[in-house]
């Protein structure tokens, strides 16, 4: 089963390392608009949310691409852009419901996450483990476990148990 990139926004600290390493790996420069991932700050609720391609099962970007430049990688299941075919029409940029495809003005091409051929750099660099790359069932089970970590404490409160 291919792995998926899981974002846990509650752990993100907003350092933008994921953006920096992404553009450095793919384009040998530090530039947000050449990164497939971006962190969005919500100061009002003290949150940071990394936004990245969800590698949708029914990808709007692929559906609207007039030259079939977007295809699914057989091994990683990532949606990847074939820049030899891409005509830079930006239809995918408009179609993505997450804003996960960005058009870079200098390279003149759409930029999206390609899961680094199955070894995503953003996951490796994230200092707070807000990004994970795991099999879907493992990832969700881990998330479920984490979300009930405080349950024993709650139970103690409810039952009035001490210690």
């Amino acid at each position: 089963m291919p792995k998926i990139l899981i974002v846990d926004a509650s752990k993100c600290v907003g350092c933008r390392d994921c953006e920096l390493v992404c553009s450095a790996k793919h384009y040998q420069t530090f530039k947000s608009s050449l990164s497939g991932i971006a962190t969005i700050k919500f100061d009002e609720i003290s949150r940071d949310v990394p936004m990245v391609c969800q590698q949708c099962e029914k990808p709007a970007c692929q559906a609207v691409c007039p030259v079939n430049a977007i295809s699914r990688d057989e091994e990683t299941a990532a949606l990847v852009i074939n820049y030899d075919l891409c005509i830079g029409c930006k239809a995918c940029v408009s179609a993505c419901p997450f804003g996960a495809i960005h058009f870079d003005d200098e390279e003149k091409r759409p930029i999206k996450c390609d899961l680094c051929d199955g070894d995503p750099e953003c996951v490796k660099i994230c200092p707070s483990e807000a990004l994970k790359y795991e099999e879907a069932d493992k990832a969700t089970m881990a998330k479920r476990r984490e979300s009930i970590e405080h349950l024993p404490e709650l139970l103690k409160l409810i039952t009035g148990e001490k210690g």
Partner: protein
Amino acid sequence: MAFKGGYAGQLLYIDLTKEKIKKAPLDEELSKKYIGGAGLAAKLLYDMIPKGIDPLSPRNVLGFFVGPLTGTLFPQASRYTVAAKNPLTNAWGEAHAGGFWGPELKLAGYDGIIFTGKAKKPVYLFIDNDEVEIRSAKNLWGMKTSEAMDRMIEIHKDPQIESVAIGPAGENLVRFACIFTRNGRVAARSGMGLVMGSKNLKLIAVRGTKGLDVAQPDEYLDAVKVWYDKVLNHPYTEGRVKYGTTELIDLMQSIGRLPTYNMQQGVFDEWENISCDTYRDKYFLRPRADYACIQRCGRFVSVATGPYKCMGKGPEYECISALGSKCGNSNLAAIIYTHHLCDEYGMDSIGTGSVIAWAMECYEKGILTEKDTGGLAFNWGDHELIVKLVEMIAKRKEIGNLLAEGSYRAAKKLGRGSEKYVMHVKGQDMASQEPRAQKSMGLAAATAARGADHLYAFPVLDEGQIFTKEIKQWYGTKYLPEIGERLSPKNKGFMISHNENYSVLIESLGVCKYGTMVPPALYYEDIIRAIEVTMGWKVTEKELKKIGERIVNLNRLFNVREGITRKDDSLPDRLTKEPAPLGVPKGQVVELDQMLDEYYKYRGWDKKTGKPTKKKLKELGLSEEAKFE
């Protein structure tokens, strides 16, 4: 362009009087001599600021600089330096901050901005990559910092805009006004917000979307792995991530180094109310990092209910101590709220807490009476009073008008012997580093170029007993054991000169002292590697130490030119003559003269005058700069 990486290669000159904007290439030779950030500030402003000027006059020059690592993936590469003639000390002034503004400036294509003159009416500078515009700040004047920054996002319709701004305190010429940076980071010291206010400059908004290249991108990413491993695996990092600097409250209390009641003592009876666990249990929300920051010591906090209800970035150790223990105040909700107000009004919380603590001691001693205060009782620990005073100071209302001058000038105005209760060096208030409990901190405060300061030398390895390995790495074995002993004055002259050279280099590179100095996870070997993969320059440790030394000496020359001598490298009598009354350092005083003699020896400065010798200046290539005499 000659630069292979790290630099934007361009400086921005803004003449506020003539409303003229000029872009000029950054000189590569100059960069090799001074790196960037604090180093570039030292050189360019030394040349531009005439001797003897009033820091509040249009002739003062205000410069913002980033370093060549700012904006890259180097751990904590978020920093900028702001410098000008210091209105607190009438000598060298600089301050530093993290956040995201520095990197944004670099990504907009600039290594620095230099402001000269004074705008006729309030203005702000707007930078959108190559577009630079001086715009009217008529509608921003009077606004608190966060409000003015939010307005930028609305006006320019871009939530990614990063800003630095002054608040009402800077506009009202409060002596210790700071420059606030979005993401809750503050260029706090040296009254830089006051200089900005004196120039009628409210804010600098920046949007930068260009790329930043490094000389060896593949090697850079390999090096990042090494640096990140060192920082993340350092045993000290865990506590830093969990508590940030608030864990220092507990450490300082335990070693008797937590300034209390205007630094009369280094232990605070009520410290548990402001401890790091109280902070975390009651008010902590989440960590928030600065740009490329893997230490993640910034925090969102919230006071959920009551009169001090607020939410935002949390106070650091310095702020908790200045507005807390220094004033005998252990109401942590009030401290968080006061910190929030200081940020909003744009005031250095160290300066704010220090002047209030001074006034409280004067009140206790009967020097300051209710006649002076308009009926207000300045009792230790009165948190309601402290909150009230912040607004009065920012608006220069009633007694706030006197306190807004800062403790040094307020005492001069008040007289009556109140001067001896001012805990300052060269006119700038001391940070919360009680030096009777750690002698190196005393020497550091006395010699720092910008006036009382713990960060210019940042002696932290002798603070606890946890950095024994690093003490050997940094200083060798020759100076053991005294160099690692908090209460020994011996070998501290060597330590402080060594630290200052390294510390100014770190500020010149545009990275944080956390990770490079505490925890001391990265050191010269890592800096050498960073310079190689970022800028493509091969440098040796010896060469880097010389660059640091050159910057320190140029800062000193600036001060010498303004009349600073050995007698100004002093500490308040309380610290050198009154034995510490309580705790671990009980009975201790700071043996400053002994340490100064040793310091000048290592510096190659004249022991009597404190001036760099001709020989030293020649060795550092500063003979031209010394020609003012």
